[in-house]
């Protein structure tokens, strides 16, 4: 009962924040609405007992990516952009395309709903918490993808520095 209430609360936060993100005029307002939306999604992770992802969502998304976004918004002066037209001239086509995409995804989901299977029996609560179990899986079965991800982050760091630095020539 309480779960249901919390689900609708977080879902409202996520979807409402998302809608405000794409409709607000000023980019800073968009970023703040996106923070609300991400916080709602983080709450949904917590409801599904994904505690580690909840922490990652807060620290990385809200604390990392969104601060990066706000930083760039400050750096790139968007005051003049806020006064201009915010939407494309052919926004109806975009809306129709997005609606079609969503409808097709919903259709596919309803077609395949019988293959989801019944909810797995609640496993006996193991001794380890969510983070321990994830760490076991991540460092045993997924060790190579983990290392590749660190390589990807290294490339991203070097690339973003290279992109953003001033050309001195």
């Amino acid at each position: 009962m309480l779960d249901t209430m919390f689900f609708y609360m977080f879902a409202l936060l996520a979807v409402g924040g998302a809608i405000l993100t794409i409709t607000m005029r000023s980019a800073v307002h968009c970023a703040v609405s996106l923070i609300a939306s991400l916080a709602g999604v983080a709450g949904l992770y917590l409801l599904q007992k994904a505690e580690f992802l909840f922490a990652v969502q807060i620290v990385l998304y809200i604390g990392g990516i969104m601060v990066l976004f706000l930083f760039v918004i400050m750096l790139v002066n968007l005051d003049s952009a806020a006064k201009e037209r915010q939407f494309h001239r052919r926004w109806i086509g975009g809306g129709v395309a997005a609606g079609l995409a969503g409808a097709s995804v919903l259709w596919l989901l309803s077609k395949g709903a019988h293959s989801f299977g019944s909810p797995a029996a609640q496993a006996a609560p193991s001794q380890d918490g969510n983070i321990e179990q994830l760490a076991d899986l991540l460092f045993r079965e997924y060790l190579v993808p983990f290392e590749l991800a660190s390589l990807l982050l290294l490339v991203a760091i070097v690339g973003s520095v290279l992109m953003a630095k001033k050309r001195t020539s």
Partner: protein
Amino acid sequence: MLHPITINHYLVLSVMLLVIGIIGMLVRRNVVVMMMSVELILNAANVNLIAFGKHLQDLNGQIFAIFVIVVAVAEAAIGLGILIALFRNKETVQVDEIDLLKW
């Protein structure tokens, strides 16, 4: 009157986030807001992964979500770097004014 939450609730929520993200991607003119829409789409994918992981009592979904977040971070860093370089050269962030490759 309040039904227990099943996986269908999460799937519908995920589709809503996806559609909002796609609309933002296609309709907005501001590059920064378009990149925020990409983050929304990636979040929709993550909600799906976690919901199915819970549904099937399988932790692999959460591992996948971690990798999705890692790739999203890399994408945001590179994308914002490109955005700064672009703004330095073109003095605009409106996508329909950036038409150098359009004939």
